[in-house]
C-alpha cells in the first residue's frame, strides 16, 4: 500500500515526519527539510515570505509524488510546504520517502525537492534590512 501526504500549511512541525513515513515494510526513511538561512550571498536575511497559487501547487506536488512512486518502489511519500512569513531556522519545506531499501528513498527524496523547486508555483520573497527580493525572478 502506497500512501502520499501532500500539504500546504502555515507552519511545519518537522518532528512528526518520521511517524508519518514509518511503515512495517520500510527499512529506510530519507527526509529533507529546507530551512530559512540567515545569510544569502553575504547579506543578512531578516525573514522570508512564501506565497503560493495553492490549487495549482497542490496539483503539481501531487504529480511529483506520483512520478516518484512510479520511478521508485516507495511505501510512503510526503511533500509539505509552508507559506507565510518565516523567520531564520524555521522549516519551510519537508519532503521524504520510505522504502524497503535505502537507495530508493534517497534517490526519491532528492527528486522530490529538486522537482518541487522547478515546477511548484510557490514564490519566496527574501526580506533584508533595506530591501525585499523575489528569489529567481530576474536573470
Amino acid at each position, binding site marked *: 500500500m502506497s500512501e502520499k501526504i501532500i500539504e500546504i500549511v502555515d507552519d511545519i512541525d518537522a518532528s512528526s515526519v518520521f511517524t508519518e513515513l514509518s511503515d512495517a515494510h520500510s527499512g529506510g526513511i530519507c527526509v529533507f527539510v*529546507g530551512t530559512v538561512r540567515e545569510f544569502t550571498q553575504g547579506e543578512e536575511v531578516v525573514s522570508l515570505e512564501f506565497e503560493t497559487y495553492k490549487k*495549482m501547487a497542490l496539483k503539481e506536488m501531487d504529480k511529483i509524488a506520483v512520478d516518484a512512486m512510479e520511478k521508485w518502489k516507495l511505501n510512503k511519500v510526503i511533500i509539505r510546504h509552508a507559506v507565510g512569513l518565516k523567520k531564520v531556522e524555521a522549516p519551510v519545506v519537508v519532503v521524504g520517502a520510505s522504502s524497503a531499501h535505502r537507495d530508493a528513498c534517497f534517490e526519491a527524496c532528492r527528486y522530490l525537492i529538486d522537482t518541487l523547486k522547478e515546477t511548484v508555483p510557490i514564490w519566496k520573497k527574501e526580506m533584508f534590512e533595506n530591501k525585499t527580493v523575489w528569489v529567481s525572478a530576474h536573470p
Partner: protein
Amino acid sequence: MDVLLFGIAKDIIGKSEFEVPTDDIPKSVQELKEYLIKKFPDFGKLSSFAVAVNSEYALDDVTLNGNDEIAIIPPVSGG
C-alpha cells in the same frame, strides 16, 4: 478576462488580479504573454514567465476561453 497574479507579477501590476480589457482579449497563451510584456514592460525583464490555464502549465499555443482560470506564473522559488 481575469488573470490571477502571484509573486513579482503581482508587484509589477500592483494588484492580485488583472482584468484584460474587452478589446484586448488574447486568443492564446502566446498572445496573452505578448500583451502583458507590451503593457507592462517589466514582464520582459523576468528570467521567464509561464501561464497556467485551469491550474495547469499551458504551452504558448494553448487557446484561451472566457471561462478558463488563467494565472501568470513568474519564476517559481519554493523550497
